């Protein structure tokens, strides 16, 4: 029996060891990804997005033609995405771990379907001449994206999503003249307020 140990154990042992090592690496990677998705929403970046959104809403409010108003906000979306990408990448890099594979992936995946839906509905509403519903729709859909994207994150993120949804719901019911105020309050105000909270509590 003792012979059996000597002969068989080394033969059988490496695959198990190897599998366990792989399993350990996978666990480390998954934990890090989860932990990063947890706080990789950059508070500072969010404040910056809020400030640019305030500027955008001020410019958009002066547009008399809806197409120009839409163009201003489309430009703001591009600016916001660039800021978000850059700030999240910087925060993820601070972790200094090469193991990390796309920490923002989860958030990006859950945020993009409602944004795509919003883009399509914007076109549909524009064609139907229901442009007054667009600000409320954007706030509402952005809120849903933030809630789902923030499910794995710190609890203030889904809370921010709920605030966006509530604001969107009010905007849909409110008279059209207030649209720019709702846009400023949501994409400007909420981003800045929650951005400060995240930056203060979760390092950047």
């Amino acid at each position, binding site marked *: *029996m003792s012979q*059996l*140990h000597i002969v*068989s*154990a080394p033969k*059988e*042992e*490496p*695959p*198990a*060891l*190897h599998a*366990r*090592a*792989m399993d*350990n*690496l996978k*666990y*480390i990677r998954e*934990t*890090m*990804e*989860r*932990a*990063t998705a*947890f*706080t990789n929403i950059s508070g500072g970046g969010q404040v910056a997005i809020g400030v640019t959104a305030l500027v955008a809403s001020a410019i958009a409010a002066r547009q008399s033609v809806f197409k120009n108003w839409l163009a201003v906000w489309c430009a703001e979306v591009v600016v916001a995405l660039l800021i978000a990408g850059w700030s999240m990448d910087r925060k993820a890099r*601070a*972790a*200094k*771990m090469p*193991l*990390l594979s796309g*920490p923002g992936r989860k958030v990006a995946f859950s945020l993009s379907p409602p944004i795509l839906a919003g883009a399509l509905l914007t076109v549909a509403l524009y064609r139907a001449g229901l442009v007054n519903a667009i600000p409320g729709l954007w706030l509402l859909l952005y809120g849903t994206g933030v809630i789902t994207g923030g499910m794995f994150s*710190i609890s203030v993120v889904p809370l921010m999503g709920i605030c966006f949804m509530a604001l969107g719901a009010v905007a849909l019911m409110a008279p059209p003249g207030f649209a720019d105020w709702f846009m400023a309050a949501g994409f400007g105000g909420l981003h800045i307020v929650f951005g400060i909270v995240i930056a203060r509590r*979760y*390092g*950047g």
Partner: protein
Amino acid sequence: MARQSALKESTQKKQRALQEVRSAKAEHPAPGLDRLIHERLRLGIVSALAANETLTFNDLKSLMNTTDGNLSVHARKLEDAGYIAVTKSFEDRLPKTEYKLTAAGQRALESYLSHMETIIGQMRNR
């Protein structure tokens, strides 16, 4: 017939013994392994802190999906080893415990990672 069943029994015995050896080996995968960090929850704590500057006790608790007692026991072991640093403060009059990975903790995780990579690499070279 009796001989056959005796043989069968002895084979089963051998297999059981082998299995015991294997599981014992699995518990101690390799000599020189950092046992402190090898334990699942502690490995999780260190990994989570490697991805974040700091995490609070509650952050870690919800991330690791564990209990207060379990987390504090394992965090204490890591703290005693100097792998993580703990700061206790008050926020809005509520106690707040923050954890941070130390340079020693970072090194321990890195050497654990390279240890695992070596094991995998050895397997590939066979």
